[in-house]
């Protein structure tokens, strides 16, 4: 049965069309794509944005697009400033780095802010693609993405996993020194590795295992402030609460 029989189409209003088009055009930034590629160990390659989604026949997006009324819909918003209710203030999400650099275990352990994340539009050295048409924050949100790392190749993701798993096993057997040594190796070899958060979590757990609860709690609180949506929030909250 065709879509048209399942759900009869109807004409969207100008505002509906404008809203649908706005979100359909939204896209991740080129920096975001590069960051994920690097995290996966993929070559940087072309980071030109893929084609925008194509409206399905009978869908709301097709109707007025064909009639070319989108510009008028956008104009509708131009003449209605401030009508979207109060424009409240924004809580700016902290930029999150997948691999916040951490010093070696013997040094004072401070979770320093990810330097790259705070810089606007860090140069994407490996990319020759044009800037993404995505609006707003993409260019200012470069986190761990950036210049291509020498030596990061296809086998590196497996090696990263192996080191992280080794550290995790050490923590599970309460071998804090072994875990910290492995994590130090991981940081040295993969300073912008894909498992930066996991490495940070394991390091904090290992410090806690060593008995330095105050330091572990402080670092856990820093982690939580920086990664409020991390899957590791529960573990960090337990340590931070001590």
């Amino acid at each position, binding site marked *: 049965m065709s879509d048209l029989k*399942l759900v009869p189409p109807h004409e969207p209003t100008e505002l509906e069309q404008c809203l649908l088009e706005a979100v359909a055009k939204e896209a*991740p930034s080129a920096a975001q794509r590069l960051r994920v590629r690097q995290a996966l160990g993929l070559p940087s390659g072309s980071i030109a944005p893929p084609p925008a989604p194509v409206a399905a026949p009978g869908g709301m*997006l097709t109707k007025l697009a064909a009639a070319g009324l989108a510009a008028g819909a956008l104009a509708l918003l131009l003449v209605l400033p401030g009508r979207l209710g109060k424009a409240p203030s924004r809580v700016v999400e902290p930029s*999150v780095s997948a691999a916040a650099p951490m010093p070696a275990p013997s040094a004072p352990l401070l979770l320093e802010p990810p330097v790259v994340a705070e810089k606007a539009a860090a140069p994407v050295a490996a990319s020759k693609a044009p800037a993404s048409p995505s*609006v707003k924050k993409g260019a200012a949100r470069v986190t761990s993405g950036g210049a291509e790392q020498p030596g990061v190749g*296809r086998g590196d993701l497996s090696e990263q996993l192996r080191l992280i798993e080794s550290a995790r096993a050490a923590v599970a057997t309460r071998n804090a020194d072994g875990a910290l040594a492995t994590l130090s190796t991981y940081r040295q070899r993969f300073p912008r590795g894909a*498992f930066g958060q996991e490495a940070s979590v394991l390091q904090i757990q290992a410090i806690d295992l060593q008995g330095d609860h105050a330091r572990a709690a402080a670092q856990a609180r820093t982690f939580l402030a920086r990664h409020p949506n991390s899957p590791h929030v529960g573990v960090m909250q337990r340590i931070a609460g001590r």
Partner: protein
Amino acid sequence: MSATLELVVSNSTQRIRAEASMDRLERMFNEHHDFIWRLLRRLGLSSGSADDAAQHVFLVAAERLDDIRAGSERSFLFGTALRIARSQSRNARRWVLEEDMDVRRSDAGRPEELVDQQRAIALMGRILAGMALDLRTVFVLSEIEGMTMPEVAALVDIPVGTAASRLRRAREAFRAEVARVEVQWKAGIKTS
């Protein structure tokens, strides 16, 4: 076969398998990353959270590549994104708009166009947030991502009739909410 030759063949086989996995992962990224990111945004994540969540989705896929049946890559990524979005929305901060949106510049067009696109995206976010997740998912996949009903049904793993029913209800909810906004705007103009 000698032990040495066996080792060489074994290493070559492992290398070939590893390269094939990376090729597959790259195809998955190229074909689905932007879709997953947009989906996460429409499921209520802020731009920054969607960045992180999208990375998380693909890292999970990388770890479980061998478990993903050929041809089911999008389904796997979709299911993972849904789970991550639900988990993050429980912990997420409240996201509200920035007051100084108007002063932001863009190289994508005139500043007022950028502002209005941002306003449109923000308004859409509020409208979708008021929609039940099952309706919102079907609405996003159909009306924004352009999927057909059979595609939506297969991805969400529901009967086609159920997908169609949800889309009808989602459209009604969307239309009602947009109409309410328009009425408020017009009332505001008359009183100004």
